[in-house]
């Protein structure tokens, strides 16, 4: 390592006023981080609504009647595993390995689809026994919260397909790698929101 590099490595060595504009990768990542935090605030509002309304079942089915813990454990496992394979995929993107990227991101896509399929299955079962969002305030809050998360996962899967097509057509340009990087942040953030969902909605409902 040369001496100039060493001085640059220490952040305080260069005064803020002399550093010039930050590189695009830092600005894009930081901006996307701010977006993710604002998305988390949306989820916080839905969590607050659920926490207030979770007891108001209006004589209809309650959380204890509706939720099956084993089903939720499988859903959680799918999302957690997809988060890790997404991490492996973004390592492959960083080292510009095409086959590794396709393999890990395909596994991520399949696990995400499995999660979504389980959730749609659960929703359709609830609708078929008359526990739809119109039944009670509790179910309205439940469908809004879990449905918004599911919608995010759906959008994430669409984004993943677009990113794989961009790798196929454009290759690993800095632009494509930056977008992939933002996708990985998005996917990990969805997993963090899911921790709140399974703790408050599914496990809290059994207490």
């Amino acid at each position: 390592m040369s001496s100039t590099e060493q001085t640059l490595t220490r952040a305080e060595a260069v005064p803020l006023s002399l550093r010039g504009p930050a590189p695009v990768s830092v600005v894009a990542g930081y901006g996307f981080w701010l977006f993710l935090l604002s998305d988390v605030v949306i989820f916080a509002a839905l969590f607050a609504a659920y926490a207030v309304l979770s007891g108001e079942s209006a004589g209809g089915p309650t959380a204890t009647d509706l939720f099956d813990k084993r089903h939720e454990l499988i859903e959680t496992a799918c999302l957690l595993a997809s988060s890790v394979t997404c991490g492996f995929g973004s390592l492959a993107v960083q080292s510009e390995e095409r086959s590794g990227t396709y393999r890990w991101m395909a596994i991520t896509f399949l696990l995400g689809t499995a999660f979504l399929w389980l959730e749609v299955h659960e929703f359709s079962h609830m609708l078929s026994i008359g526990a739809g969002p119109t039944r009670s305030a509790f179910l309205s809050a439940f469908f809004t919260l879990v449905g918004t998360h599911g919608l995010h996962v759906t959008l994430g899967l669409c984004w993943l397909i677009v990113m794989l097509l961009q790798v196929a057509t454009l290759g690993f340009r800095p632009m494509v790698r930056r977008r992939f990087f933002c996708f990985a942040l998005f996917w990990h953030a969805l997993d963090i929101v899911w921790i709140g969902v399974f703790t408050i909605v599914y496990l809290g409902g059994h207490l």
Partner: protein
Amino acid sequence: MSSEIRAQGVAPGVNASPHGTRQSYLIGLSYAVILTLASFWASSTDWIYPPGVPILLGVLAIAQMGIHLVFFLNISSAPDQTNNILALAFGVFVVGLLVFGSMIIMANLNHNMIPMDRLMQMQR
């Protein structure tokens, strides 16, 4: 390139160490699996004093969120990550305000509301 980024700060999710990252994902995965199984076990066991279970679930969930932030999103307390940490702290503050504020206000309103039968009598 990397030294340039170091001088400017790091975007969230950028790992500081160039190698051994696959290992960090696997470490994060094992912690996350342990914490998830612990919270599923805690919600269905008789071994724990029942009023303590919600607190235990909350602690396990917050611990797992921390594990995800550190091992998957690569957030750390390094000096070049100050911006990310500050944004995260503000986000956590707003989330806490929103969730606990709503719960306290709604519990208070519930407490102060006239019981339904008295309300019916007043309307008559």
